[in-house]
């Protein structure tokens, strides 16, 4: 059973067991415009919640992606290197960025669920 949670920076983390899959939301890809480059963390890197983990770039904008929770990077979506457009086409599916093995699952408590994120989008725009 998986659960998807959201940050205020428009990242999602899909949690399955102790593995979290991190990417940006459909709203975020829409705001960024055509994604042209994604810089991913190296496998094995230990990330602390809130630390800079990746960079997503469109032609005119670059955004840092922060770790939604602490953990070790277990896998990165290498396909984004050649086809960054996947982020636009399927942000929450094949456009995922990287996976981490959660070391502090408690940290997830502060994140929004889908309903809360929808509500957040309406207020924060």
């Amino acid at each position, binding site marked *: 059973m998986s659960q998807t949670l959201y940050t205020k920076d428009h990242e999602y983390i899909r949690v399955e067991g102790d593995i979290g899959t991190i990417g940006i939301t459909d709203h975020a890809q829409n705001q960024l415009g055509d994604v042209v*480059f994604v810089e991913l963390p190296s496998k094995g890197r230990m990330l602390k919640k809130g630390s800079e983990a990746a960079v997503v770039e*469109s*032609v*005119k*904008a*670059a955004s*840092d992606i922060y770790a939604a929770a602490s953990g070790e990077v277990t896998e990165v979506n290498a396909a984004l290197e050649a086809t960054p457009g996947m982020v636009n086409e399927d942000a929450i599916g094949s456009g995922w960025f990287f996976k981490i093995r959660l070391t502090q699952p408690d940290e997830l408590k502060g994140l929004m669920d889908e309903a809360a994120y929808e509500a957040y989008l309406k207020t924060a725009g």
Partner: protein
Amino acid sequence: MLARAGVAHVDALFADIPADKLLSGLMNLPEGQSEMAVERQLSAMAARNVSAGSVPFFIGGGAYKHHVPASVDHLIQRSEFLTSYTPYQPEITQGTLQYLFEFQTQVAALTGMEVANASMYDGSTATAEAVLMAHRITRRSKALLSGGLHPHYAQTVETLNSMAGCQSQMMTPDLMGNEDILALIDDELSCVVVQSPDFFGHLRDLAPIAAKCQAHGVLLIAVFTEVVALGAIEAPGAMGADIVVGEGQSLGNGLNFGGPYVGLMATRQKYVRQMPGRLCGETVDADGKRGFVLTLSTREQHIRRDKATSNICTNSGLCALAFTIHMTLLGQKGLRQLALANHANGVMLAQMLAEVAQVQVLNQTFFNEFCVRLPGNAAAVVEALAAKGILAGVPVSRLLPEAGLDDILLVTATETNTRADMEALVAGLRSVLSC
């Protein structure tokens, strides 16, 4: 217009300036003058300088006197090039963008590298930026600078590097071009910076340095100050350099008392996202026609702000244009001929100077400049020759006052020097040295 803007007096538009800080009268400077008067004043000032073209001239050391075809200066003064801004609206700046694309291609080909950017301020700042780029790529922070690196370049690197909190190790000035740089390459270094032809004129074989660098995960930054040399000597890329930077002034650009010049920077494709400066790339428009745009700009300050690869904004657009026009006129055929003519004149001058008693030519290898040892203070000899209307070269002590090289003169001959120039130098030197 004032009424439409809703004010009675123009000063009302400056109401946000604190009243006690608003200048009431004129600044303490002269009032405006006619075009004729300004021309007269500036021409008088210019006339107090000895221009390179008016005398036998042998000065190099990072800036070179070459013949620039007349069409170059004519073309760069076209309004559409001269008075255009950075090509931020590509639909109406394809002229600038296309020449930048051609320029990048030419620089990449000359240096033997995969990609080049749309230019930097000059060779020295390009070198400093290359060092920071190497730090970013290797995630190390110590640079090793060859003793053959132009002293101004080394100082420029040292200033930026230390301000950025990084280290640099400068080797002692390498008059004879025989320093043992290989012994200093280790896993701690981010990069090694080697110039060829070096400041003293020697040609450096970069291949063994590149091999050792590679074994230690260190990047080799190859530097040149005389781009014409690349028409005759091996391309730094072909010898294994990772980043190539240099001064492009020799093609298309005049001496201008030191600037503006044009910095060249080229590297491997895989490092392009760590490269500073503007990049122009090919694409298509809505009708599928080929066109060019500035691209990968997320590396740059106007988007990345404090995380940019550099703070550089302006490049040397018009100087890059002069460079690319001259290069286009030359083609590889002309560049080879130009390089050959330079080398031939350098060799001829070296032979003539070697025959002067008390003068010793120090270089085994060189392109168009080399060092000679004089029996006394080189700066004094240069002054004495200047008084005779001969600009003889660069006393090395001017750039390296503490190096104990007071008797060393750096002499340059380009295609612009005639045999008569060289004979005048030899005769002048004989007469100065015999006093």
